């Protein structure tokens, strides 16, 4: 996955970039299956390899196809990235090992969910029961966020399909006419 990510930095043709990003998310989805997260893998595969790629391709069709070459001073961002990476790696030295069953994350609330979910909710899929029953307020907020983001997209470029694009500069947002 790191190889794909590094290739993404170098490739300049934007179509290739979008395809690589799709492959990247698909590889991430298979990684999730290896880590026993089947629900998440399902969602990531459907969303990342499907919807994301389609949306980016549409944006490409509406803008340009190539990234322009630009010799820019790349040293300062590179140093910043290396320093931040070193600080983060120093921070991870304290963390529990991969797959450790005694890690603190498995101590507080998770045993209660795993043990009581069968009795209280009666649904075999624990992820669904936590998502929809134990933490349903968060899911309500999330659905509202999806709704709001879509309304935002509609407000930004969802204007009239029937009248073709006007050339005046005041045609930016400001009231949705002609549904």
């Amino acid at each position, binding site marked *: 996955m790191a190889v794909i990510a590094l290739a993404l930095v170098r490739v300049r043709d934007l179509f290739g970039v979008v395809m690589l990003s799709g492959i990247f998310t698909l590889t991430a989805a298979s990684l999730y299956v290896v880590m026993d997260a*089947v*629900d998440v*893998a*399902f*969602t990531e595969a*459907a*969303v990342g390899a*499907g*919807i994301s790629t*389609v*949306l980016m391709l*549409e*944006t490409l*069709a*509406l803008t340009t196809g190539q990234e322009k070459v630009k010799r820019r001073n790349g040293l300062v961002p590179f140093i910043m990235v290396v320093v931040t990476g070193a600080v983060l790696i120093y921070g991870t030295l304290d963390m529990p090992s991969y797959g450790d069953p005694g890690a603190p994350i498995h101590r507080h609330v998770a045993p209660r969910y795993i043990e009581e979910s069968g009795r*209280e*909710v*009666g*649904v*075999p*899929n624990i*992820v*669904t*029961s936590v*998502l*929809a*029953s134990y933490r*349903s*307020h968060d*899911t*309500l907020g999330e*659905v*509202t966020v*999806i*709704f709001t*983001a*879509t309304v935002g*997209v*509609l407000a930004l*470029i*969802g204007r009239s*399909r029937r009248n*073709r*694009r006007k050339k005046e500069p005041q045609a930016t947002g400001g009231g949705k006419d002609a*549904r």
Partner: protein
Amino acid sequence: MRGNMILRIAAKMLIPCILLFALYVQFHGDYGPGGGFQAGVIFGSAFILYALIVGIEAARRAVPAVVSRVALALGVLLYAGVGVAGLFLGGRFLNYSVLADVSTAGQHLGITLIEFGVGITVAAAMITVFYVFASEER
């Protein structure tokens, strides 16, 4: 033209299967991986595939833009409605146990309803965003 034809035939065979699979994932979210979000995304992408094959105008006749926008709001309303129904029946907001006589049956009913609401909203969001992007001209 030949390449186009192969795509059309393959898509015509696949799209009903994808829609059926989306429904399966939606209602089997309790017993296996799945649930509202996955089902909504799969449904949306089946529709996008259809729109890519037959063109945007024919797809607009199948699902008009108004329907997808109304469905967007309807899903959220369904979710909040289940929560408020819990309020009316005596429990707290979004407490499903009071929706039926047996507590676990109430939970099951509540979970199925809100997952359906989530699925509708997510599918409508995908379709609406696709319409908006596809009808824009350069």
